[in-house]
């Protein structure tokens, strides 16, 4: 791996472009998908099937005045939306999209992503606190307790993966899963044992739920909760402040999906032993994203204490049991 400085910078520019387009068209997909689930058409007027709608929305957001209301902490208020974007964008840098397609190879990339994800939570906290709005304040408090509760099962699950592959490097984790879905960590019947293959789907589900909760998506969108807290931490934001929060949210979703793909779904590996490549990676992450959207438009929202109960009473015990069993299986087989 060369240490050329230009490589990460060019990648970063690519990620930024990707972030904008991704947020715009994932938003479009979400609206269309929600429309189809609800037996309506979704956006139709701007362009064919409303394809230009995201562009129109983006232009609208950019052309609006950046309003900083009276009584807000003006520095933190401006910092928060940026803070929502930066960690997500930075974590993209260590994600291996394919064999050698990675901005910067980092040995402890799994740890780095989790560290950055915790900063992402600060955006909601600061945005909520700085807004000086009581709903935003409640939202900030909620998001902290939620993130705290869900990082534990997530990390415990990651430890099982690390135990299986013996590495904290995302590229190595993905590389260890090459050669058909029977090698993937979600169902590692070939690379590990059948016993392991039975408990890993549970780990996958736990990790999936946690990543939905970490990215503040319905049914765990406690911080946003528009029917209770109006829009939570985003209540006072308009124009690109709101736009950055939204882009950050979608980018966080993408990072979450990338992580799941690498940790559980074999990264860029083709299923059934087909030759791998970046396209498989993209197919996998977008399938995961569609699932997240599908989940959002199916369930009602949970309630903050039920959400914490789910984490502390169900996800953490299950993930701990998984961890112990994995350790035992590694020792035995």
């Amino acid at each position, binding site marked *: 791996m060369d240490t050329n400085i230009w490589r990460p910078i060019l990648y970063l520019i690519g990620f930024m472009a990707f972030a904008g387009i991704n947020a715009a068209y994932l938003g479009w997909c979400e609206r269309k998908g*929600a429309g189809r*689930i*609800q*037996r*309506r058409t979704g956006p139709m007027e701007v362009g064919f099937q409303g394809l230009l709608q995201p562009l129109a929305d983006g232009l609208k957001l950019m052309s609006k005045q950046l309003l900083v209301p009276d009584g807000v902490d003006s520095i933190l208020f401006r910092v928060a939306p940026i803070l929502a974007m930066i960690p997500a964008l930075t974590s993209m840098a260590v994600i291996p999209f394919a064999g050698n397609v990675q901005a910067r190879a980092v040995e402890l990339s799994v740890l780095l992503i989790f560290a950055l994800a915790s900063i992402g939570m600060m955006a909601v906290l600061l945005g909520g606190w700085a807004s000086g709005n*009581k*709903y935003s304040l*409640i939202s900030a*408090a*909620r998001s902290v307790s939620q993130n705290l509760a869900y990082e534990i099962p997530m990390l415990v699950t990651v430890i099982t993966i690390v135990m299986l592959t013996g590495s904290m490097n995302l590229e190595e984790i993905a590389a260890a899963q090459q050669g058909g879905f029977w090698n993937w960590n979600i169902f590692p019947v070939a690379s590990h044992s059948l016993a392991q293959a039975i408990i890993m789907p549970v780990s996958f589900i736990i990790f999936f739920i946690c990543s939905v909760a970490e990215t503040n998506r*319905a*049914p765990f*969108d406690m911080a946003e*909760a*528009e*029917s*209770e807290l*109006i829009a939570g931490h985003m209540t006072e934001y308009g124009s690109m402040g709101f736009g950055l929060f939204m882009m950050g949210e979608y980018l966080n979703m993408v990072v979450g999906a990338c992580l799941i793909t690498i940790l559980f779904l074999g990264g860029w590996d083709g299923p059934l032993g087909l030759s791998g490549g970046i396209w498989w990676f993209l197919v996998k992450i977008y399938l995961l994203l569609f699932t997240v959207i599908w989940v959002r*438009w*199916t*369930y*009602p*929202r*949970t*309630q*903050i*204490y*039920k959400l914490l109960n789910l984490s502390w009473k169900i996800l953490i015990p299950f993930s701990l049991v998984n961890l112990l069993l994995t350790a035992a299986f590694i020792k035995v087989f």
Partner: protein
Amino acid sequence: MSVPVQCRHDETFVLNLGPQHPATHGVLRVKLTMDGEYIVKAEPVLGYIHRMHEKMAEDGNFAQFMPNTARMDYLHALAYNHGYCLAVERAAGIEVPERAEYIRVITVEMNRLTSHLLWWAAFLLDLGGFSPLLYAFDDREQILDLLERITGSRLTYCYFRFGGVYNDIDDEFIAGTYAFIKRLRSRLPRLYHDLVTGNIILIKRLKGIGMLSKEQARRYGCTGPVARGSGINYDVRKNEPYSVYPEFDFDVPVYNECDSMARYMVRMDEIEQSMRIIEQALDKLPDGPVRAKVPKILKPAAGDYWASVETARGNLGHRLVCDGKKNPYKLKLRSPTFSNLSCFGEVAEGMLLADALAFMGSLDLVIPEIDR
């Protein structure tokens, strides 16, 4: 979940929920004193769309108040039509032809269906579920199309007249109604019960939340599904039969759990009972005139009269005081949600904000009806 509220007075803050808030379905404001996310004190503030309908009633003659009735509870407008007609008919001693009574029952029950469907949709929206809204609206739209066919309007009906209804129903309406009931029956188990009622998230959010005991319900004068969810078997259609309701075989769903889930289940069961009533009424529909001969200007004898009907939200009473002139001397509207909401302050104390909003949704508030 009940966590005892213990806080210092200076640690609470006041949160104004509304008048513009997505969960208050209109312009209700609730002044909440909060300790973190727990509610220490809740105080509904009403009157943001108060229109003084009672004064308007005194101004015009009896018939001229008719369009106003539909504009209070816009979700169950025909029941308000019906209640006012009953009060005036009782005062003036007007007999209503049987066919008209049947048509009234059919349309009122269809309107009740729309009201419950919309409540269901909006309630799920309060809880953050979006898709059910559109499914319920799909069904509701079918009823509105049918009602538009005979009444000419879709929301604020002015269809009933003293001594009958504005015009007769036709065969296409009858066939359409049968078809609609068949359709709703086939959709209810899947799209309503499997998707929502059985959902673990919904159950966890509603079970044991918003406990309104039987005694509390009585002391606050709750009626309708709110009372029936607290184990009170009270339905004006059964307890104080009016129109041709005694001729139909239907049950009054009563749940004893006293929580939001019970109120939810009462309304879901009522949808089925309303469909039963409509079917029976269509089967038995007699021939004959739909309107009695009534003088254009009514002058009921002096005295005061009360008439109650069961709307989708409970017991709606009209107290009509006449002095022998052509306009009501006084018309008191007893709106069910006004009483139902009055328990909110007591019940919401110590609740979480999100639970309080779920409880508020389960009360099925229609603000114009509260404010009148």
